[in-house]
């Protein structure tokens, strides 16, 4: 009876209950879980980082002069620093339960202590990962884009076609672009980014690429199958948007110029 009551609780209450349990009874377990997950990934990355460090130290020497020159020129031209969005790095751990073929939820190792708030977008170098749902003191929980209730407003990079992205629930996970206008047909490979509409995700986060046309409601709308930019199983380090993001444009972070 009590279990049925739990299922029928409002989602906000369920989140509060889950957050309370995670920050009390499950807190030591989560810390150990994070440690174990870190150990696994760290072992593989140490060698990779060693090689990277060597090449970066060479590059850094050359870049120091360029950076100083850049700063002087900016001051001369009175230009502000680029971008108003603030991201914080976080480690992501998969959360799930038996019977889940595709992971839908994750836990981050940062929370209120890093100014993370509910509905904060979570991104990876590849693009959109998901959204934070519940925030605790030192950790938070969120949904991947694979979650059945996840929706994000999307558009083509040129801003001509808009639609809503949702998960198709397949394995391997794919997305669906729904509600795209009938008059314009998108070709496979067309890149989709967040449109900035809806007040949660800033404009310009890569979502994925159009794979194929799924259906066309005569004279009304088209829907496409979309190959995601980021697969939940392949992401461990993420960035969480903590300020100025909802209304900003982060396109430049993913353009070749912004990544340079």
């Amino acid at each position: 009876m009590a279990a049925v009551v739990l299922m029928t609780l409002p989602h906000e209450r369920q989140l509060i209950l889950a957050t309370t349990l995670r920050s009390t009874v499950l807190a030591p377990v989560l810390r150990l879980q994070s440690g174990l997950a870190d150990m696994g990934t760290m072992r593989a990355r140490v060698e990779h980082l060693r090689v990277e460090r060597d090449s970066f130290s060479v590059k850094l020497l050359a870049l120091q002069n360029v950076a100083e020159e850049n700063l002087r020129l900016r001051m001369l031209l009175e230009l502000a620093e680029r971008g108003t969005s603030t991201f914080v790095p976080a480690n992501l751990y998969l959360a799930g339960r038996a019977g889940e073929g595709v992971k839908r939820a994750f836990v981050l190792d940062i929370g209120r202590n890093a100014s993370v708030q509910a509905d904060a977008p979570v991104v990876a170098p590849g693009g959109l990962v998901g959204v934070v749902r519940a925030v605790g003191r030192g950790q938070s929980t969120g949904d991947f884009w694979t979650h059945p209730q996840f929706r994000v407003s999307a558009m083509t990079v040129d801003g001509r076609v808009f639609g809503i992205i949702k998960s198709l629930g397949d394995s391997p996970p794919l997305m669906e672009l729904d509600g795209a206008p009938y008059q314009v047909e998108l070709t496979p490979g067309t890149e989709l980014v967040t449109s900035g509409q809806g007040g949660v995700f800033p404009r310009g986060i890569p979502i994925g690429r159009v794979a194929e046309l799924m259906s066309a409601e005569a004279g009304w709308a088209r829907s496409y199958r979309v190959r995601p930019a980021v697969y939940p199983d392949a992401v461990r380090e993420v960035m969480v948007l903590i300020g100025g993001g909802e209304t900003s444009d982060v396109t430049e972070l993913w353009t070749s110029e912004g990544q340079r």
Partner: protein
Amino acid sequence: MAERGVFRLGLLVVVLALAFLHFALSPVFDSWYASPNLLLCAILVASRQLRPGAAAFIGFSLGLLEDAMAVSYFGLATLTLTLLAYLGSLTRDLFLGEEPLFIGTFLFVGTWLYEVVSFLVLGAGGDALSFILLRAPLDGLATGAAGYLVLPFVRAR
């Protein structure tokens, strides 16, 4: 009377240890193709030793923790594990004894049932047939093996 108290304490320690390991080792188990569900193992093993009410309470408590780890479909694990614990306890009237083969089969069936129900209710993606006939049975076997290992610690004297 004192022996009974020691037995109950031992059972509680085993249940808590299995639950702890279930959550702590989940990143390790995630990378295995077939992994034991230690939470279910704890609940089912305990349900064979307890009355239906007490078993259902353990199923409810541990199910709540499982739900807290993944906020989607909150309450599903609580409900399923409570029911499984209750039904598991009722089997004490039908099947007597704690033969390792019987306990292994009991854990196998319980795990398979739980994973298949979760899979169907969650509407999870992927090949349903492969999950129901291959993945869930393998998890069931692994859980059965884990149960076999903890059995000496919880068997009623």
